[in-house]
């Protein structure tokens, strides 16, 4: 007899959602989190997209610690001197809430406490060392030499899954699997944030930017999200680029972003309250490991079920969805009394049926565009020149747009044939 039906490693969105589902279905669950309290080590720019949580917490929109809901979504290209942006501000976003900003310290604690209230045994401040095997089957977890046994182990340990890797359940994480995320939380009065972003009440702004001003071939995206009394601002940097350019440091990129003439005014007078760096799943089906086996499943970032492309970071929604799917598979396995690889494979099938794996496959293509030189170098420069030349009065008759465009391309640092090729690739993948 095992001590628990299920052990969940990690109380992030994936682990806690999983534990809530398991415990509220009557399974005995141990949820282990190394941080105390949960969330105190977690980083997230923090827009929770979608309504996945409703499956385990129907009234989450009323009771979860949410900061603001997104009514205004910005996408911008930043060059040294310019910001070219499209802002989508819509009544539609006010009436259909699609995304909420959250602060992980509070949000993760809320979820973990929900798991506890549902009946899970929540242990915080302890790091699991490995999973325990018997006859090549996972039979529990190991910590400081003690084995705690369970019928199934769900690994939800985030983007640096030491337990899964050290136990040989997934390949080590490489540069192609992750980007580097950096985030600052900056405190400002609520009224100041509302004024600066033209918001009312708990309306929020979420912006993503191509950092087109970066030199040395390093590609990075920036994000800026409003919370109630803070702003989350950060950068997502291509890991391979960073490794290839020894002279570029991640904090320099962040510094250039926050001091950009069209970003700095948003932050003026604010006090940096938190600074953190974390791996971000870069997405793509290529990074997704074997998801389940005898006595175990892997969920959330640990299974690379997240996505970032230098523009948008999504992960919490996939984490929640996969965590719940793993719980459902465990519940079925419990009914069958069978926790073998064949039985737990229903987890993989659930992910294939809902949108998670489909999205991962699609991102494989999009990522090639969003991390491309076209997107990060040429487009910002071309756009800047086109707009500037269009509005700049020289006292001469206006030139034809196509003429300006051709000239801008010439000055973009990419050859015309290169551009056409990349643009063609981009169009095919979208």
């Amino acid at each position, binding site marked *: 007899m095992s001590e628990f039906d299920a052990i969940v490693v990690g109380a992030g969105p994936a682990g806690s959602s999983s534990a809530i589902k398991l415990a509220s279905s009557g399974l005995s669950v141990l949820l282990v989190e190394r941080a105390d309290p949960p969330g105190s080590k977690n980083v997230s720019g923090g827009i929770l997209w979608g309504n996945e949580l409703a499956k385990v917490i129907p009234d989450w929109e009323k009771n979860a610690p949410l900061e603001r809901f997104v009514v205004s979504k910005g996408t911008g290209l930043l060059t040294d001197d310019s910001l070219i942006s499209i802002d989508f501000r819509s009544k539609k976003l006010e009436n259909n809430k699609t995304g909420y900003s959250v602060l992980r310290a509070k949000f993760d604690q809320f979820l973990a406490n929900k798991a506890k209230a549902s009946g899970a*045994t929540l242990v915080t*401040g*302890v790091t*699991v060392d490995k999973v325990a095997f018997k006859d090549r089957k996972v039979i529990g977890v190991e*910590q*400081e030499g*003690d084995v705690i046994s369970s019928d199934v182990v769900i690994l939800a340990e985030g983007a640096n899954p030491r337990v899964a890797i050290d136990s040989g359940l997934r390949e080590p994480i490489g540069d192609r699997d992750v980007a580097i995320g950096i985030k600052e939380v900056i405190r400002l009065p609520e009224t100041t944030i509302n004024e600066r972003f033209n918001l009312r009440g708990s309306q929020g702004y979420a912006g993503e930017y191509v950092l087109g001003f970066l030199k040395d071939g390093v590609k990075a995206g920036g994000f800026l999200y409003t919370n109630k009394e803070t702003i989350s601002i950060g950068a997502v940097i291509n890991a391979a680029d960073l490794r290839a350019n020894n002279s570029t440091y991640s904090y320099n990129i962040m510094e250039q972003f926050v001091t950009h003439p069209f970003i700095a005014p948003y932050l003026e007078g604010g006090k940096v309250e938190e600074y953190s760096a974390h791996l971000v799943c870069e997405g793509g089906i290529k990074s997704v490991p074997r998801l389940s086996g005898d006595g175990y499943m892997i969920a959330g970032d640990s299974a690379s079920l997240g996505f970032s492309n230098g523009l948008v970071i999504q992960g919490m929604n996939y984490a929640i969805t996969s965590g719940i799917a793993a719980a459902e598979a465990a519940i079925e396995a419990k009914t069958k009394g069978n926790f073998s690889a064949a039985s737990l494979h229903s987890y993989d099938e659930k992910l294939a049926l809902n949108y998670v794996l489909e999205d991962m496959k699609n991102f494989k293509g999009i990522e090639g565009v969003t991390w491309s030189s076209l997107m990060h170098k040429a487009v910002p420069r071309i756009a800047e020149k086109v707009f500037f030349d269009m509005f700049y009065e020289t006292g001469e008759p206006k030139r034809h747009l196509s003429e300006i465009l051709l000239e801008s391309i010439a000055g973009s640092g990419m050859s015309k044939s290169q551009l056409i090729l990349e643009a063609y690739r981009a169009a095919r993948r979208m």
Partner: protein
Amino acid sequence: MIILMKQVPDAEEIFIDPVKFTLNRSQARGIINPSDENALEAALKIKDSEGGEITVISMGPPQAENAILECMGRGADRGILITDRVFAAADTYATSLTIAAAVKKVGDFDIIFAGESTTDSGTGHVGPGVAEFLGIDQVTYTVSSRIEAGMLIAERELEDGIEVVSTKPPVLVTVLINANLPRRSRLRLKIDAIKKGVEKWDHDSLNLPPEWVGIKGSPTLVGALKIPEERKRESRPIKLDEIPVLVQDLVKKGIIRTGDEA
């Protein structure tokens, strides 16, 4: 053995409200008072070699249960939380008296370990206060302790050196923050702790006259809390070869004295 433990806000997470300029502890997580971790470790070392049971006693709000569970996760066997509205706003006198009553209720004890002082109020009164109310010996400022032939041998770190004390339990020992390296909690022990649970003792279970506890039993009055104003320091850049002039200046201002005067 008994450990006295207070849950305190993590000093690293207290911040000054940028608008109201007050200390905001609301976002600070509760942690075991640092020197109480050393007190627990001192007891665990004795448990490792001599065996025995360790009971943790803490007086505080319901949230302090978490810190007690953490102590049990490191090896304490039993946890007691003294919690009741009427205990609120106790000064060090009433706190010591209430804790002493709880110790008596636990009954048979040999060594009581307490931290030297806390990071949130830091009076250092409570350990010695409990010893006085119990009428037992105390050994303060210890950096190590062990049992030898029924005697407690402890090293006290004093300004002018280390003093080795040998005393017969029952005794209360206060432990300094540099005494040892506290161990981490273990998953096995934390699960067991959660299963066991923490006992909650209220005013009724201690059976103390109401006028002895909480704010009523506290003779101390806090007049006001003030942040001392920072004194502006004078400074000016000097070149190396100006040092003799600077020294003369400082002597003239009476800030330093030369050896011949002394």
